[in-house]
Structures are given as structure tokens and as C-alpha cells.
């Protein structure tokens, strides 16, 4: 499975989204499920799927899906 597909599956499961809602422009402020607990779930999911353990500062500093993609890229995880 491609990295983008893995990321989309992860986001759908963490934030309980449908396919159509996904995109790098999706912001934390747009989702009621991207709250502090959603941030915890996202960090757990990123570690499961990509093997990268986000620091609390990285996880709480994310403001959008694009921000997550950019963070993962800096860790050598390329999301097409």
C-alpha cells in the first residue's frame, strides 16, 4: 500500500472521516474529533503505521494534514 493510501486510511480511522473529506488542506480547526484526545490517537496511529514516534510538541503543534505530511517528510517518510 502506498504511503498516501496508508495516511488516508489512518486519518479516516483516527478522525472518523469519509474519503471525500480528506486532503492536505484539512485543518485541525475543521474537525471536532481533532481535539487533544484526537491528537493522542493520531500520535499512536502514526507510530503504528509509519514507525515514527512523534514528540508531544510535534503532535500538539500540528494544525493541518499538510503539516503532518511535511513533518513526516522531514523524518524521511515520503507521502506522495
Amino acid at each position, binding site marked *: 500500500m502506498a504511503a498516501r493510501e496508508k495516511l488516508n486510511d*489512518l486519518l479516516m*480511522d*483516527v478522525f*472518523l472521516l469519509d474519503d471525500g473529506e480528506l486532503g492536505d488542506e484539512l485543518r485541525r480547526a475543521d474537525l471536532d*474529533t481533532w481535539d487533544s*484526545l*484526537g491528537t*493522542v*490517537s493520531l*500520535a*499512536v*496511529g502514526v*507510530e*503504528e503505521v509509519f*514507525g515514527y*514516534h512523534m514528540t508531544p510538541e510535534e503532535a500538539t503543534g500540528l494544525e493541518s494534514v499538510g503539516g503532518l505530511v511535511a513533518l513526516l517528510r522531514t523524518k524521511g517518510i515520503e507521502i506522495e
Partner: protein
Amino acid sequence: MRPERLDVDSMPEALLPPVVTWASSAVASAVRAELGLEPTDPGPLPSGARTLVVCGGGTLIDRAKATAKRRPEPVRVVAVPTLWGAGAEASPVIVLNGSDGVKEIAIDDAFLPDARVVWPEPSATAPTALRRAGAGDVWAHTLEALISPLAGDSIREDAAALVHELLPLTPGGEHATTWLDLSARACALQSRASVGLAHGIAHQLEGPLGIGHARVVAAVLPSVFALAVAEAPRWEDVAAAHELDAERIAARLAQLADPEDLSAIRAALSEYWRAILRDPMTRTNGFLVRPAHLDAFSGVAA
């Protein structure tokens, strides 16, 4: 900060008069006969009260904590759990059942009881099924803390030590004093690391199904633990670091569940699964709980 641990014999030293006593109906007569205290109906405390002794389960103890500690001049709380599991006597968390069916959850160190009393007799004579379910809650607090994403090394070390102490004990078996002490320690861990999927399921199902919290937790914990071993990113490392044997733990957990509870829970899981996924307790689980994980419970019924 932990509540002072007292035995029944040393409890009177902790009671600053005037003392008010609340007791669940199951132990009211024993409270009179063995503790020498006169229970009154739970409600507003009389002005001037300085100590509230509460003998019962987690629900009554949490109500006592809220009542006593929310007063302008807080009253001492001496908590006497009548069974292990909930651990309310050692927790800064309160869970209150609202009249509208919605639970109020609050966390504050101010809610910690001032003392917890180990009174093994009521636990020792409780029905085996309740003792076993309470053991499930102790196990769940321990295992969910062990792999919690909010836990640091110190919490994991404490949780792993608890696992080693729990393993030799038959769930619901003898050793009431030991179970009460382990229950308090497990709950103290839970208050620092939160809980996970087993509690998220219980939170959503215990009301609609009319099955007590500990019974739901005990019923689903074997499946939740199996998922954790397969999915939790840190299980392998934690298990290796603390010499934890998943098969041995699973064998103990398999002794927890009541077959009738299992059937009722399985029948309801699919209807409530989305609410379970959104439950705050599920969202601090040690692995990401996904919609597809519902399938893992298909064999949960006996």
C-alpha cells in the same frame, strides 16, 4: 500523593468528629456491628461534619468524594471499599451518574480520599462472579496503563511490577487484602495514565445493557489484550524489558469473563461501536482503535 492506608483496627484514629457514615445496603449491618458506625442516607452533609466515612463500591465512594470535597470547607473522606476493582478509594477521579443518564467525569487531586481502609471481610464474602469481575477491572487498569500513550517509563515499570504480582492470583479467589491493595495501586496508575478500549466499551455499554462496569470490562478484556499484543506499537518492547509473557497473561484473563455477559455484549457491540470509537477512554488506548477492530470481538461470545 496517596491516601493513607489503614487497617480496620487503626481506622478510629483517622476519624475527626463529628463523623458521618455512608454505607451501601449490602454492608450496612456489618458497618454497625463490626465498625461501630451508624450509616445515614447519602445526601448533603450536616454543617460542622469533619469526617465522611464511606463504605461501598466505586459509585458511592465517588459520590462521597464529590460531596465532601466540593464543600467550601472540605470534609475528610475515609474510604472503605467493599470490593476490589474500581479503586475509587485511591483515585483523584470521580465519575458521577447524572439524572439525565450522562456521566460527569472530573479529575482533581482534591478528590483523593484522605485515607483508605482495608476491610477484607465484605470482599471475602462477596459472590464469586463479582470478585472475578472486580479482578478484571484491576487487570484492565494495570494493562491499559502499561501500554498507555500517556505513560512514561516510571508508570510502565510500576504497571509491569503489578502484572507480576497479579499473575499468581486466581481472579476472584482468596487473598482479599492483597487484591484490595493491588486494586488501589492499579487505580493510582490509571489516574496517571488514563485507561483504554476496555473502559471505553464499558463506558458505552454498562448503562444500556444494565451490566455493571467491572463485568463489562472483565468480559472484553481478553479480546482487548489480544488486540494490544498484535497492534500496540510498544507492546513488544515493554514485554521484553519487563519479562512479561503474553500467553501467561492471556491465560489469566481468560478466567475473568462471565459467559452470559459475553453474549449480551457481543450482541450490542456493533450498534455501539461508533460511540465506542469516539469515547474519550478509547482515544487514550495503547493502540489505535479502528472501525475494523470490531471484527476482533466476533468470537467474544461463549
